[in-house]
């Protein structure tokens, strides 16, 4: 193709791409599955909502902000667990967290009976829902347990697309996954920038400095230092393809959260007295090392 043809094709691709970020949780989940469709489990008409919000005069969402969509990926049974970030920031309450933990636990139980379901988690969450504090935190620990127990039987594939990103206890969950796919717009961090600014001061981190934040914890940076696996554009087809490829790559024998000596060595080489330099870090910690 000539240069003009290439740039035309690229523009065409950009204009016809389907934005994943602009879709709600249900749309995102459907776009991952074959044929763009699936069956909703524990949907809003089951009315299994938060038992804790109404007493605080907070309006519920009947599915508590987590959508379970069962379908297929490359013809194989699959479940997409999609967090609706528009509801309470995608935060984990008793029910929203239970839907995630229960799904992963059930998939493991099914696996022991010879029935495989491919789990995909669309992480779009600020972490624990403060209005349910200790039950949110507890269920996140259960999610961690379920991911680790499941991932050496079936790959657990995580996607962070933005714009909310993945924070708090769910950032640990994302890091436990077999594969983690991120867009440039996505962020993966344990503490929200506002919380760091609040706890450690604006010198430590100016939460209004967007380019700083993304340079430290954005998708491109995370992939470049090996803390996520695949960088994708905000394109539903591309993301679905990356999910399919991840399953084809199979179970990961040494997930990054188990590669202790490797990371300790990297940490030992790092000199905290130096200014934080995310670009230099890419060279030192580059993906694939």
């Amino acid at each position, binding site marked *: 193709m000539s240069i003009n043809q290439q740039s035309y094709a690229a523009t065409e691709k950009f204009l016809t791409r389907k934005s994943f970020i602009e879709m709600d949780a249900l749309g995102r989940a459907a776009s991952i599955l074959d044929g763009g469709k699936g069956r909703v489990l524990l949907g809003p008409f089951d009315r299994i909502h938060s038992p*804790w919000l109404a007493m605080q005069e907070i309006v519920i969402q009947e599915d508590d902000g987590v959508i379970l969509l069962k379908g297929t990926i490359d013809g194989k049974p699959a479940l997409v667990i999609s967090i609706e970030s528009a509801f309470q920031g995608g935060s984990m309450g008793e*029910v929203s967290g*239970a839907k995630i933990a*229960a799904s992963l636990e059930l998939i493991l139980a099914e696996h022991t009976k010879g029935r495989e379901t491919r789990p995909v988690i669309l992480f779009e969450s600020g972490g624990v829902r403060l209005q349910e*504090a200790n039950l949110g935190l507890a269920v996140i620990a259960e999610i961690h347990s379920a991911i680790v127990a499941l991932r050496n039987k079936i790959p657990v594939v995580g996607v962070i697309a933005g714009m909310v990103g993945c924070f708090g206890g769910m950032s640990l969950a994302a890091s436990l996954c077999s594969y983690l796919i991120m867009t440039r717009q996505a962020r993966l961090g344990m503490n929200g920038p506002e919380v760091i600014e609040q706890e450690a001061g604006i010198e430590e981190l100016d939460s209004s400095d967007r380019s700083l934040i993304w340079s430290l914890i954005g998708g491109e940076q995370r992939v470049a230092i090996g803390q996520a696996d695949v960088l994708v554009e905000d394109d539903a087809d591309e993301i679905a393809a990356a999910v399919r490829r991840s399953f084809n790559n199979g179970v990961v024998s040494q997930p990054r*959260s188990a590669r202790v000596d490797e990371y*300790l060595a990297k940490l030992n080489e790092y000199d905290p007295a130096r200014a934080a330099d995310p670009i230099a870090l890419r060279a030192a910690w580059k993906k694939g090392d």
Partner: protein
Amino acid sequence: MSDTSISRGDTWLKSLTSRETSTAFGCASVVFGDAPLGNTNARFIAVVPDPKSKFPRARKGEVGLEQGWILAKLIRDTMKLDEGATPRPIVAVVDVTSQAYGRREEMLGIQLACAAAADAYIAARLAGHIVLSLIVGRAMSGAYLAHGYQANRIIALDDPQIFVHAMGKQAAARITLRAVDELDKLGERVLPMSYNIRNYAKLGLLYELVSGVDADKPTSDDVNKVREVLVRAMDDVKASGKRDLINRLTSNDAIKIRAASNTVREQLMKEWN
């Protein structure tokens, strides 16, 4: 008991291991000791303050980058030592103020460091180790997820300085635009939001809340009492034949308070096929 104690976590680790403790792989903030528990030998692990820690934002007992990875290494080494033999019980002595908050922490991936610690505790359970947690101080947020929340059974001391929560009170007050005493009142109405350990105990997540011991300066009777609860917890896990977290859903309190969690599981099974 000890004038040189640097934290409750340090105090209780030393008490339970008769002061035979070591730092893990040269990291002064991850300390452990091996000591009898019932008729077996257990490994006790604590995260403690280290004012000389390499990362300035992790010097007061937080779980930061080093603590996360070193915990992971210690637990995995313990697993390796026990390969081919009966896996020993691992006891997390929990007094962790929070995860570390800092620019370097985020850049270098504290989410992965804490995940690594949680991962190791889970791997230990999956390999047959009984994991217990003893909360003697703070068990907060990501630090608790990394160190303590993966236990088969969790025990806490009944003491007003014991806090389990997702966010510190001051920070939570700022974020929810409420006064601190408003938050306290809210915690009385909304059980999971309470900072009071006695309310945490009602959620059905604890094996036991131990009263009548001095959390700061335990006597030897206090230590024996706690050790006895740990032994009972260990035997309870053994008797169950499982190494999972299911008791957090099946305890009497959980059946009441976490009813929705159980409904989710039951309904999901009905709709699955």
